[in-house]
């Protein structure tokens, strides 16, 4: 697969025009556009024999559905309700609740919230005996989130699910040394050091 220059990829995405490319990239851009235009978008034509065989099979299947397929096949379901049927239904539901338990006693579904993101933190610290993560998400507790050694020597990792928003953090190496994440932006922590920043 051809790996185009990032600016040429932006051209293909429509983010820049050919005229906006630097002169040395215009030839590559034109070539990329030519390749894009050359993609054959014509519908695929089947031979008459293949089409007849496929359509025959489809018709046979539609004409004689099996019992299992009739039971399991998804189909449109029409429900109709009338107001005067609501009262007995509510009474029945109340009776069921009284008989089998209080509403809300069932465990809450642990569906993932769209307002969270799972983040993997990585630090290369080959001399470290232990590494932890402390930040606004764990009350800066240096013992709360230890990193574990990964398969690669010297590489420590931790994976956390964090709420959307802005978080500040640092790695704590061997329980004493606060180290900002070299892969993340940093801000002044107000104490003469830097905190790493994560925005989700």
């Amino acid at each position: 697969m051809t790996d185009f220059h990032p600016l040429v990829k932006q051209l293909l995405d429509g983010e820049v025009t050919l005229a906006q490319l630097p002169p040395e990239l215009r030839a590559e851009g034109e070539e990329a556009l030519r390749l894009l235009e050359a993609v054959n978008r014509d519908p695929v034509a089947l031979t008459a024999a293949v089409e007849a065989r496929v359509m025959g099979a489809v018709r046979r299947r539609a004409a004689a559905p099996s019992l299992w397929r009739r039971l399991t096949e998804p189909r449109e379901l029409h429900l109709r309700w009338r107001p005067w049927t609501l009262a007995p239904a509510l009474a029945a539901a109340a009776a069921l609740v009284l008989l089998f338990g209080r509403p809300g006693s069932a465990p809450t579904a642990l569906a993932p919230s769209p307002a969270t993101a799972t983040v993997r933190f990585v630090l290369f610290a080959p001399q470290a005996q232990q590494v932890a993560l402390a930040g606004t998400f764990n009350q800066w507790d240096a013992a709360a989130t230890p990193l574990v050694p990964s398969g690669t020597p010297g590489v420590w990792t931790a994976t956390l699910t964090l709420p959307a928003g802005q978080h500040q953090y640092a790695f704590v190496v061997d329980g004493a040394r606060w180290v900002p994440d070299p892969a993340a932006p940093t801000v002044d922590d107000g104490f003469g050091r830097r905190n790493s920043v994560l925005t989700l």
Partner: protein
Amino acid sequence: MTLRLLAGLLVIAATPLGAQGDVAARLAGRVSPEVAALVRQLAVDAAARGLPVDPLVQKAIEGGAKGVPADRVASAVRGVAGQLDAAAGALREGGMTPPDTEAIAAGAFALNAGLRGQDVADLARRSGDTYGVAATLRVAGTLAALGVPAAEIVALISETIRAGRRPADLLALPGRVQAEMARGATPAQAAAGLARAAAARGNPNPPHPSPDPPGQSRPKNPHHP
């Protein structure tokens, strides 16, 4: 009417006490009693002025966890209180009345990262409901933390919003700037290139391109306008 008035007075009277109790519980065992007392007082003042309390508590806890002397923790917490005040003022100037606590906290973060009050006001004015002021300011602060100059931050975010990009695209801007930096661009060049790309996408008839290719313009020298 009398009942409503009474209820209102009860809420006003109870809020600082509740905030004090909550702050005291969060700080217990984490900071010195002097720092805890200062943060409690600052928290009550902040709550009364509609400012968020959590950043104050977080800064105190952070100082305690890092083993910072009490006087420096107190100074840092006062600094955060000042930034929250400044952010609230900038947001009001940007038309957000009254500013919500989430936006104020995000504004204080942006100021700490290097933006000016005027930038915060500008961004608040431009972000609108689609993107959310807090999210916009968090992105702006993160870009500043990456080393992008304020003018380029405002331009990049403004062009992204003007081009009608999705909120997720706004959140992705720091990552895209980092990717360009990994390819050798300076933070300013990366942001300027992305801003031009957003402008070109938002405008079907882009103006004549600048002599510099996207992402490769030279940063302006602020000392020689």
